[in-house]
């Protein structure tokens, strides 16, 4: 596709379960970002990738959160032992360069019951 694709678009899970969120960036975009957006709030930086490397993981809220990127393409954000406070929309964005325009996906809405 032409844009950033995220899946699933909606995920409802029970507290304590693990979830995986997937992001397919625009082909050729070397930079990939993950953000979290709580209801009515701005974007909270989680992690970014330059190629397959993550120079800055400082935004990950806890060790329950991890992310990887392979083939300078698809990225997966994994949340282990989900908690209710993890409920949010997780947005992925890709860019041709680190400080270039970000192209966002529509997000994955996570609800932890």
């Amino acid at each position, binding site marked *: 596709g032409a844009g950033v694709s995220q899946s699933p678009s909606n995920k409802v899970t029970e507290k304590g379960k693990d979830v995986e969120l997937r992001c397919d960036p625009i082909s050729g975009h070397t930079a990939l*970002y993950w*953000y979290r957006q709580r209801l009515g*709030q701005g*974007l909270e930086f989680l992690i970014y990738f330059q190629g397959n490397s993550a*120079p800055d993981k400082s935004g990950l809220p806890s060790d329950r959160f991890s992310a990887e990127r392979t083939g300078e393409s698809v990225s997966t954000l994994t949340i282990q032992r989900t908690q209710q406070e993890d409920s949010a929309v997780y947005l992925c964005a890709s860019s041709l360069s*680190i*400080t270039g*325009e*970000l192209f966002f996906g*529509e997000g994955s809405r996570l609800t932890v019951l």
Partner: protein
Amino acid sequence: TQLLEQSPQFLSIQEGENLTVYCNSSSVFSSLQWYRQEPGEGPVLLVTVVTGGEVKKLKRLTFQFGDARKDSSLHITAAQPGDTGLYLCAGAGSSYKLIFGSGTRLLVRP
């Protein structure tokens, strides 16, 4: 830690009115971007400013980057209901990651 503060957090105005949204930081940014987000969608880039003092116009929207590259403003003239949305500023700092402000939610009433 680089932080971006936006004000106001929420703005409700009548169609035809003018408004200004502010984005402030104590840190210097190499560039600053403004995005607009509509419900259920990801943010979409409006403009990027890179030079201190730079002013860019996009139809009824005017963006300014502060001389010291620590702050920015977005001015909308004669607001329309289609301008309704969440406006986000984002700064690129020394670590190159883009940090977003908390956003300004704008409602333009017909």
